[in-house]
């Protein structure tokens, strides 16, 4: 057998940590990882945040982000150990032989230079191609990647193309100098599902046609299953399982991998609507102050006590605006809200404390939803004190009960948010909402910032709490899998309008309208060949293209 293009042996990576109240010390964050990669093959690296995926990816460029050191092992690329070569050699390797596609193309492109100039830069600089050769290569790549107007799109500035297009430009940038290896670091994570699918297809096609080797980093197993030949599952810097995509998806061996494969297997039978809805949004049309554009048009939805209405749609569809209207942050231009049989005043300032109590909200980013200078006890205790006037021991007891409900113990009461993990933070936010004993909680993308397994835990907790407290949820999300897991009824939103609305089984069964079909079919499924099937069968192109 010939030497593989990339051979990584016992790769160890360390970092210096600066914990408060302690001396800075070194820790190891990747504990000896091995893999091989041959030309034309794709390796998927998967794991939750902190697993070391990106760190390993960057190590194949002999690079460590700030404070990170490659402490041991070998990384052979093209027959030489790049950890041992000189700085000059490494420089010619980066961007030339090995290139990198980052998660946020918008943050990686220089906004002041035209796309084409940036795409050809590396090729010209390393003397691989002349400027005109590189430009014609770039145009070919633009075409291969399915970008519109491949001849002229390079003359635009990064802000003049959409997010999905820019991500494809970045792929063109990486492929232009004819590298032998490309590192894709979560290239589709920041995109809408409907856009993700096209970028994914473009990347897959480009890898296939150019015959480069690729490392594809993501936290979404269903995505990586579509593009890679082999998958390595990582957890906390250790390799958990390494095998062909076929084997990992269809017959995972390790418990952790099995959990990842079967994530979102929550079953929630649909409840039929009760007589009187807890909240009715009637003919809501809303626009932001000093703008003419209606962000929401004629929205009519109902939420029933103790049930969940899921609002789905891609970014810009008006989901979060609907939440702002209901909470009173943005009074609607037309339309009214009826809460529990009573008319709800449109603006926040005129609502009674009792109305405010009934309606609570949980945010997407738990870290910024909690005051970093307040302890968990204060955060959860404040609504208890504010709405029910409990003080001292009574208040503390209620906080402890709430901590218990969210499956966290009394020892968390004096901790600050910075001392909690992502999932714990979101649990504390849930407890804060519950502390008010509300009838309705608006959950705005509460699981999208979390790792899949942690998100699963949060969803289960929300369902349990719904049973116990009989609270209704308005669940805003772009993730159909989440919707399937927890919703009773669903509203599909598109460009500010409710496109499809009704019980879960009704909305999720055919015949679909074109948009719902696109949205539903764009959600990656945990099976091989899904991507090809979808591209063949769908009826509508996504808007981001």
């Amino acid at each position, binding site marked *: 057998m010939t030497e593989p293009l990339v051979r990584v042996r016992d790769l160890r990576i360390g970092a210096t940590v600066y914990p408060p*109240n302690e*001396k800075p010390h070194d820790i190891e964050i990747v504990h000896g990882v091995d893999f091989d990669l041959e030309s034309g093959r794709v390796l998927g690296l998967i794991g939750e945040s902190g697993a070391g995926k990106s760190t390993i990816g960057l190590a194949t460029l002999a690079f460590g982000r700030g404070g990170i050191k490659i402490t041991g092992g070998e990384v052979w690329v093209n027959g030489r150990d790049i950890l041992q070569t000189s700085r000059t050699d490494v420089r010619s390797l980066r961007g030339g032989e090995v290139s990198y596609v980052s998660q946020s193309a918008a943050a990686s492109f220089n906004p002041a230079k035209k796309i084409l100039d940036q795409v050809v830069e590396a090729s010209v600089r390393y003397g691989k191609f002349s400027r005109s050769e590189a430009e014609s290569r770039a145009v070919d790549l633009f075409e291969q990647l399915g970008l519109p107007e491949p001849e002229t799109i390079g003359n635009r500035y990064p802000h003049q193309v959409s997010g999905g297009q820019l991500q494809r430009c970045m792929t063109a940038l990486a492929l232009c100098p004819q590298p032998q290896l490309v590192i894709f670091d979560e290239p589709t994570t920041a995109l809408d599902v409907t856009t993700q699918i096209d970028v994914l297809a473009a990347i897959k096609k480009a890898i296939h046609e150019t015959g480069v080797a690729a490392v594809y980093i993501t936290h979404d197993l269903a995505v990586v299953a579509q593009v890679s030949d082999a998958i390595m599952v990582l957890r906390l810097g250790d390799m958990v399982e390494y095998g062909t995509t076929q084997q990992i998806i269809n017959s995972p061996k390790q418990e952790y991998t099995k959990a990842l494969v079967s994530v979102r297997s929550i079953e929630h039978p649909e409840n039929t609507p009760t007589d009187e809805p807890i909240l009715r949004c009637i003919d809501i049309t809303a626009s932001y102050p000093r703008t003419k554009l209606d962000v929401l048009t004629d929205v009519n939805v109902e939420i029933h006590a103790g049930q969940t209405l899921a609002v789905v749609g891609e970014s810009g569809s008006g989901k979060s605006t609907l939440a702002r209207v209901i909470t009173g942050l943005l009074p609607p231009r037309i339309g009214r809200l009826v809460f529990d049989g009573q008319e709800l005043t449109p603006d926040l300032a005129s609502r009674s404390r009792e109305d405010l109590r009934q309606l609570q909200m949980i945010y997407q980013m738990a870290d910024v939803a*909690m005051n970093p200078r307040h302890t968990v006890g204060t955060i959860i205790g*404040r609504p208890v004190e504010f709405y029910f006037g409990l003080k001292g021991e009574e208040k503390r007891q209620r906080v402890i009960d709430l901590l218990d409900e969210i499956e966290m113990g009394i020892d968390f009461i004096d901790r600050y948010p910075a001392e909690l993990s992502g999932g714990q933070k979101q649990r504390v936010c849930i407890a804060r909402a519950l502390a008010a004993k509300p009838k309705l909680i608006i959950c705005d993308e509460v699981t999208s910032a979390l790792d899949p397994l942690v998100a699963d835990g949060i969803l289960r907790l929300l369902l349990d709490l719904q049973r116990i407290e009989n609270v209704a949820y308005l669940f805003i999300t772009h993730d159909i899998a989440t919707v399937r897991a927890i919703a009773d009824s669903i509203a599909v939103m598109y460009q500010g309008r409710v496109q499809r609305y009704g019980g879960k089984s009704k909305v999720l069964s055919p015949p679909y309208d074109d948009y719902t079909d696109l949205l539903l079919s764009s959600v990656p499924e945990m099976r091989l060949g899904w991507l090809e099937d979808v591209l063949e069968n769908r009826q509508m192109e996504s808007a981001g293209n």
Partner: protein
Amino acid sequence: MFVRIPFAAIIGICFTLSFFLIALFAPLIAPYGYDEVVSNGFWEPATSEFLLGTDGIGRDLLSRMIYGLRTTIWIATLATILSFTTGSVLGFLAAVMGGWIDQALSRFVDLLMSIPSLIFALVILSITPITILILILVMGLLDATRVYRLARAVAVDINVMDYVEAAKLRGENRWWIIFREILPNALSPLVAEMGLRFIFAVLFISTLSFLGLGIQPPQADLGGIVKENAEGLTYGIGAALYPAITIAILAISVNLVADWILSRTTSLKGGRG
């Protein structure tokens, strides 16, 4: 909490602390009264009796400087406290309220800031009686414009955080939002700024006194002592240098402490933490 204090900060803390202690216990430390004429000579060199010599009219220079330090620190501290309370409360209020209140306050502050503060202070002090209270008020309010700018900028950032929105949705009133949600998160940059503003206040009051519009004789303050003894420099007598050097050391040492606080708060927890 204080694991490793950099060397420069330790020096700063030691000096700052001793200056404040001297200021606090001036009557106990000073060998003579501040306006006590203890010698018939003038600008006498240092002796064991008068450690820094005497001034132009035969007062003990060391005693005068100790009392001068007390006055300077006292006025600068009060002015800083005044500027911080008014500046930050108004700044937070402007950020939270927005709209025309923000506009009115901000434009008024712009107006005040467009006039150089020294000139502005000189104009006011030349038409009002010069008392310590007026001095503190003038310095404090002029400095408050700078604090307002900083406080507003910091608070505007914090005001859009989800936790502030959560507090608004809960129905909290404005004062809770300002004092419990915004203030704790704005404290670090404000405290660091406070050190710097304190130094500016010291320099400002010294400048005013040097120009004759600050502390009036026979009361002593560092800038005033420089002025009193400046004439001596022509005859090669260095009495004016001692208070000048004291001002410099005070400014540098407080600066070292402020720098350290600033670096602590920016390196930890990503900035405002």
